[in-house]
């Protein structure tokens, strides 16, 4: 109990001190996870929308596969990407292993299935309502995809936040492909793992508090923008 109290005090002190190292770690965490969410969204959301509207052979298998991939252990994803990006692997010549780009790739691979599966669920409900009207307008499945994505934008914010949450909380994959290099690929979660290894549990916990605060802040910001937009009825 005392540890937890001191962790909050330490977290507060860390934030107030404006520590350079901490700022860099926080900045990298945000950039990596937000970029990963952006890239995963470019693939995952249209795929989810397409699965919501289109009926084709193999669709059910794809839905099941996506739902299963939601549970993909990060360390497994990390390992696969490690092998792919290693100098001895198929994409070795790109020299991406142990770089922030590798971490972005790993997180994007992890959360794209989540975004696709969740957006499919959300948009399928909307498609039930829209299908007849859009078909009457002469809109086929392909045209319905952007319509659903745009009209579902408020619901999809929640989906994106779920993806961001998973990305920023993830440690296994970024540890393996990023290498937790100080000042270069160290993010909040790998820093927490490192401080735990060093037995500095209060500092680890304090970093955890900071991470929670960041995730909370991003969620609050997104929620606020969403509410504002909804009130204006965009």
């Amino acid at each position: 109990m005392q540890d937890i109290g001191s962790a909050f005090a330490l977290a507060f002190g860390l934030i107030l001190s404006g520590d350079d190292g901490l700022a860099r770690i926080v900045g990298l965490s945000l950039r990596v996870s937000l970029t990963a969410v952006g890239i995963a969204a470019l693939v995952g959301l249209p795929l989810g929308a397409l699965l919501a509207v289109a009926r084709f052979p193999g669709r059910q298998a794809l839905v099941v596969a996506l739902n299963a991939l939601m549970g993909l252990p990060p360390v497994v994803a990390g390992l696969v990407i490690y092998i792919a990006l290693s100098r001895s692997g198929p994409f070795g010549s790109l020299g991406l292993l142990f770089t922030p780009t590798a971490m972005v790739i790993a997180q994007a691979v992890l959360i794209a299935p989540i975004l696709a599966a969740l957006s499919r669920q959300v948009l399928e409900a909307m498609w039930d309502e829209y299908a007849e009207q859009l078909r009457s307008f002469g809109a086929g499945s392909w045209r319905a995809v952007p319509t659903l994505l745009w009209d579902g934008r408020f619901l999809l914010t929640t989906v994106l936040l779920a993806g961001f949450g998973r990305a920023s909380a993830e440690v296994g994959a970024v540890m393996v492909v990023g290498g937790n290099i100080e000042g270069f690929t160290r993010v909040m979660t790998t820093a927490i793992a490192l401080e735990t290894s060093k037995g500095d549990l209060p500092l680890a916990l304090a970093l955890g508090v900071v991470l929670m605060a960041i995730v909370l802040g991003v969620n609050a910001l997104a929620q606020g923008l969403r509410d504002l937009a909804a009130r204006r009825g965009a």
Partner: protein
Amino acid sequence: MFRRLFLGLGLAMATALPLAAQTQSITVSSTTSTEQSGLFGHILPIFTQSTDIAVRVVALGTGQALDVGRRGDADVVFVHDKDAEERFVAEGFGGPRRAVMFNDFVIVGPAGDPARVNGLRDSVEALRRIAAARAPFISRGDRSGTHAAELRLWQQAGIDVATGRGAWYREVGQGMGPALNTAAAQNAYILADRGTWLAFRNRQELRIVTEGDERLFNQYGVMLVNPQRHAHVKAEAGQRFIDWLVSPAGQEAIAGYKINGEQLFFPNANRPGA
């Protein structure tokens, strides 16, 4: 409104893409003991300041660190398992090996000392007593240099932990820090490198029970990954790092790292046979 939000997100991502400033840098695969003891945090800024070469350290167990070198994913390997290092060089993955420094291992155990080894200098005898008392012992179990050293000591003690071990012998398959956390939680004995132990904060009941035995010395070596095998290896910058480590300046930097006034690593680049 929402369009603007997406635009802002896109902008944030675009600025995120050039993720690092492009000064020259090398990647060093090394061990958790050098990273977690804080040694690199002390010596790397000194090196970078004099050469303008940034050093990116990936800290793993020695076995893994050598594997990273074998795959060509690092420019320099800096580890502590002489046998494995010499194999690495013999197989043509890198080298030549240069000795850099040593620190020592200590046997850490609970204050209650159920195996009665406290103050014993003979590390092999200490392990025999721990086994005889069936006192809990945490092994790294991760092919690290420390793990290799531990297995050598068991062999010298005549105890076959590979097959003849009991429930008292517990492999955690993790780095030094997590293994120490486990030992602290279970009041177990453990072989630890002194540097990580000194920097370790979550000791609880643990304390040093055995130290000072010459068999507990822990030699570090450094090798350049073979650029003939992996053409992208930054041979020139990597070699400069190695040369610096064994130079008087590097050796002095290593000797200068202390925790609570206690020196952790002892430079010995010029000692024959190290």
